[in-house]
């Protein structure tokens, strides 16, 4: 049992949530574990701020030798994810107080958190893969926590796609690790370009991570799962867990060697996801599914940004993507919380929440002055290809439209009792995340976007950010009120036709097999009967002495002849 080497903080960051999760298992400390929930990500947050960069901690006995490190982008991811989990955790303490099944919720909440943090800290593939598997499988348990029929159905779709994703990742990692003959992510990334089957590996990794990030056509589980989960869980699902997929792509895609083919493909699917998300999102009635489709769209943009990085200078693009993810995480987390708050507040109390939600929506759309504008600006600055540039800017219109639809559907969610007021803790966590979304990009813009702050304040970038939002708002104002009866596509759009087709396939297979089974199987007893009858007839003959006597005389003659053949 060798003692882990190197700084201990990363290990503590991972073990702390597990410890709290364990508390939940023990009945005596169950209530207190719910209260401790927000503190679970604290050590990770500390690590993000004070942790020393590029130092590895090695725990050789765990798994196949766990190595943890903290590189540039990971630090920011770790930081904002930890904050997001704290906010959602705070919200959860209030949200879950009177609800049943607290222990499984807290337990699986902590395990998902531990997996999520592990993804950002892992330096070797095995730890990365284990954390990724833990986060995606435990998230299932959060999705189906409410146990409603809708949640269970969403869970099934989620788990099937999650398992498919995991398998793709496993294959990709296997090919990479075999080629690199080492487990470290850095070596694998380098080895992937010229590895035998390297192309296949990259494709598999893109599918595996893309699926987690809601990339078209593997996005179908997201609009089903996120809305079905309890509010804090969907906040975390959309805000932090989706980012694991993005981070995975950033870690494993071999940018240095300029993978032109995959980069282009990633850009295209990213943009398709962006626009597809908006198109289907507009037809949704449930605010949470609108938000889910907005996540698909936003993540589509991030994917495009990463794809574009393949050609140009990768480091800047990834940094910009980090900033974009950071802002999106906070904003989307807050928006999901806002749904919870609005639902719990009366008409009068809902007004400020709706206002804040609208503000956040504007920030996501990139309204100048908000965090979102900075993130959008950072993104646009690093897209060289003009067509992509314009597509991205136009997508801002779509986003505004979609989020306007969100605010509209949110307004309809106001609770009936006039004087219902959300609990102060809930509002506190919502406000914290909203502020973080609006403010934090200002702090990180310089080192993540690689541009001076002044750039974002310059007239051209303000104008650049403003006009799409205005156009979007105008269209929204014009259309949304007039045609509410837009044909509503069922959540998880592609799922329904695919499941029908699968069910038909299963029925056919079952019928085929049953026909196969009633083929008569030969019974050995029946086959042996003639043999047995012949033998007993011969036996009766041998028993008759007159025959046997002759046989013996003949036998003697035979032996005599045999002997004389000397």
């Amino acid at each position, binding site marked *: 049992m060798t003692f882990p080497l190197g700084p201990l903080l990363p290990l503590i960051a991972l073990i702390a949530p597990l410890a709290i999760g364990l508390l939940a298992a023990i009945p005596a400390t169950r209530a207190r574990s719910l209260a401790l929930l927000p503190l679970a990500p604290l050590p990770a947050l500390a690590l993000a701020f004070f942790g020393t960069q590029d130092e590895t901690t090695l725990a050789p006995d765990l798994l196949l030798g766990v190595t943890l490190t903290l590189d540039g982008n990971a630090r920011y991811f770790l930081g904002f994810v930890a904050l997001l989990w704290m906010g959602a955790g705070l919200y959860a303490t209030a949200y879950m107080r009177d609800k049943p099944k607290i222990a499984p919720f807290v337990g699986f909440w902590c395990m998902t958190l531990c997996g999520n943090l592990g993804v950002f800290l892992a330096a070797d593939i095995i730890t990365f893969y284990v954390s990724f598997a833990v986060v995606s499988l435990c998230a299932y348990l959060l999705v189906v926590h409410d146990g409603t029929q809708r949640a269970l159905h969403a869970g099934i779709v989620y788990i099937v796609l999650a398992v498919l994703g995991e398998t793709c990742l496993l294959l990709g990692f296997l090919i990479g690790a075999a080629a690199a003959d080492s487990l470290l992510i850095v070596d694998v990334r380098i080895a992937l370009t010229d590895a035998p089957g390297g192309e296949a590996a990259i494709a598999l990794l893109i599918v595996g991570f893309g699926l987690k990030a809601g990339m078209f056509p593997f996005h179908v589980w997201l609009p089903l799962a996120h809305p079905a989960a309890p509010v804090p869980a969907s906040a975390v699902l959309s805000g932090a867990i989706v980012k694991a997929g993005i981070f995975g792509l950033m870690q494993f895609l071999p940018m240095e060697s300029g993978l032109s083919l995959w980069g282009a493909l990633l850009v295209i699917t990213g943009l398709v996801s962006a626009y597809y998300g908006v198109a289907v999102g507009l037809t949704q009635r449930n605010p949470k599914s609108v938000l889910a489709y907005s996540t698909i769209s936003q993540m589509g943009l991030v994917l495009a940004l990463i794809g574009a990085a393949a050609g140009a200078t990768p480091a800047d693009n990834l940094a910009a993507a980090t900033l974009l993810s950071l802002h999106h995480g906070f904003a989307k987390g807050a928006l999901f919380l806002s749904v919870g708050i609005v639902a719990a507040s009366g008409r009068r109390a809902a007004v400020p929440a709706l206002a804040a939600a609208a503000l956040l929506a504007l920030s996501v759309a990139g309204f100048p002055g908000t965090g979102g504008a900075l993130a959008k600006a950072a993104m646009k600055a690093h897209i060289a290809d003009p067509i992509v540039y314009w597509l991205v800017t136009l997508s801002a219109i779509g986003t505004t439209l979609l989020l306007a639809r969100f605010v509209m559907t949110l307004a309809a969610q106001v609770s009936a009792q006039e004087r219902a007021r959300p609990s102060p803790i809930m509002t506190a966590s919502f406000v914290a995340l909203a502020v973080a979304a609006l403010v934090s990009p200002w702090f990180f813009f310089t080192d993540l976007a690689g541009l001076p702050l002044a750039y974002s304040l310059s007239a051209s970038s303000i104008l650049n950010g403003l006009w799409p939002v205005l156009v979007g708002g105008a269209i929204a104002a014009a259309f949304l009120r007039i045609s509410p009866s837009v044909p509503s596509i069922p959540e998880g759009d592609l799922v329904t036709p695919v499941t029908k087709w699968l069910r038909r396939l299963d029925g056919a297979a079952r019928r085929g097999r049953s026909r196969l089974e009633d083929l008569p199987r030969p019974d050995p007893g029946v086959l*042996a009967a003639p*043999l*047995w009858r012949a*033998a*007993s007839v*011969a*036996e009766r003959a*041998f*028993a008759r*002495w007159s025959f*046997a*006597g002759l*046989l*013996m005389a003949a*036998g*003697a*003659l*035979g*032996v*005599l002849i*045999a*002997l*004389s*053949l*000397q």
Partner: protein
Amino acid sequence: MIAVTACLVLPLAAALAAIPLGRRAPRLALVAAPLILLAALAVATEIWRTGPAQLPVGGWLPPLGIALVVDGLSAAFLLTGAIVTGAVVLFATSIFSTPDRETRAGFAFWPLLLAMWGALNAVFLSGDLFNLYVALELLTLTAVALVALDGRRETVAAAIRYMLFALFGSLAYLLGVTLIYARYGALDIALLRILAEPDAPTFVAAALMTIGLAAKTALFPFHAWLPPAHAGAPAPASAMLSALVTKASFYIVVRIWFDVLPVAGNEALAMILGAMGVGAILFGSVLAIGQERLKLVVAYSTVAQLGYLFLMFPLAGSGGEAQPWAAGAWNGGVVHALSHAFAKAAMFLCAGLFAEAIGHDRMDGLKGVARTMPLTVFAFGLAAISLMGLPPSGGFTAKYLLLTAAFAGGNHFFALVMLAGGLLAAIYLFRPLERAFAKPAEGSDITPIARWRQAVPLVLAGAAIALGVFSAVPFDLLRIGRADAAQEGLE
């Protein structure tokens, strides 16, 4: 060499004394059996230390006098016979001892059994062909009488059929001995080994003797008398018949072909005996599979297992350079004979106990017997393992040696037949075992059997297994005074 004479004299004397003792004969047998066992043990240790011995009877040296010869082979058979017969005696005291009233079977069984024991020892000890004839006839006499012991019509008919085969066999053997004497003027095995040459009278004599003994050993196609005879006889008797009586004539065939006339033997003869052996294995097994009565299954199993013994002739001598150990096939055949003796005796005793417990001999009655008679089923299982040639039993060691000899000699066909024989044996031996392990059918009342009576077959079956596990000692015993023909074979 008092032990050698004791081996001969004691059983015969006890047989004679048993007649006047009548109802007290079982006690006499219980006294005589250990003594004879001790004598056999003494003989074995004697020749272990000093090597083969020759004891001229009455001081007359051959060719005129008769010599008793003891080497590894005979000592092994003596010891096996003593153990098996000792166990049978112990077992039979519970069946054939009727202190209150006199029964014909009870009266006749003990002299016949002890006389048979004497005859067996005489066969294993005599070094002279005519002496072998006399011993063989005494053996047949007692065997036929034991078959017809309970006087039912089927058993008397079976005894007569057995008698017909036996008479033909003894006449053929006698004619052969006469021709040998006419040709060489001597009947002593040691002398004949030197004098023998491959010429016409020797061939005729050898052919007659071989077929005569084959009939007495019930080798296929002359086997038809054995199943009704051994199944009809009472359990201890059929144990003796299957385990030892057939082995005596096989022992003489081995003596003739490996000790007396190795020069006369050739490839064709070996192939004929081999072919008959293969026929026995396959034919006996197929018939055993279809039987409904347990004793018939066991009897046909004897017919099949005897086939293995005769595979020894084609395979002997094909040692090949890779064999670090002694002649494969010869050893294999003899160990098979010995382990078959133990296993078959145990199996027949178990069959007897089952028949006694469930009242009839049909196998369906065996359902659930494992619960009430665990020891007997365990003994039957161990014996079955040895007959199937599955490790760790003596049967396996024998089969392993025969197989290796077959492969070394390149005749793969015999190897395949042996393996097939093992599988067929598994089929017909697991049928009764399966019923024993089944749930007892309702309303089947199984009369409990004393544990000590169940222990007797267990000891015998254990001996069959021990022969496989601790087989180093028997092998060294068999090597003493073994004919060199066993190494080179008959070619």
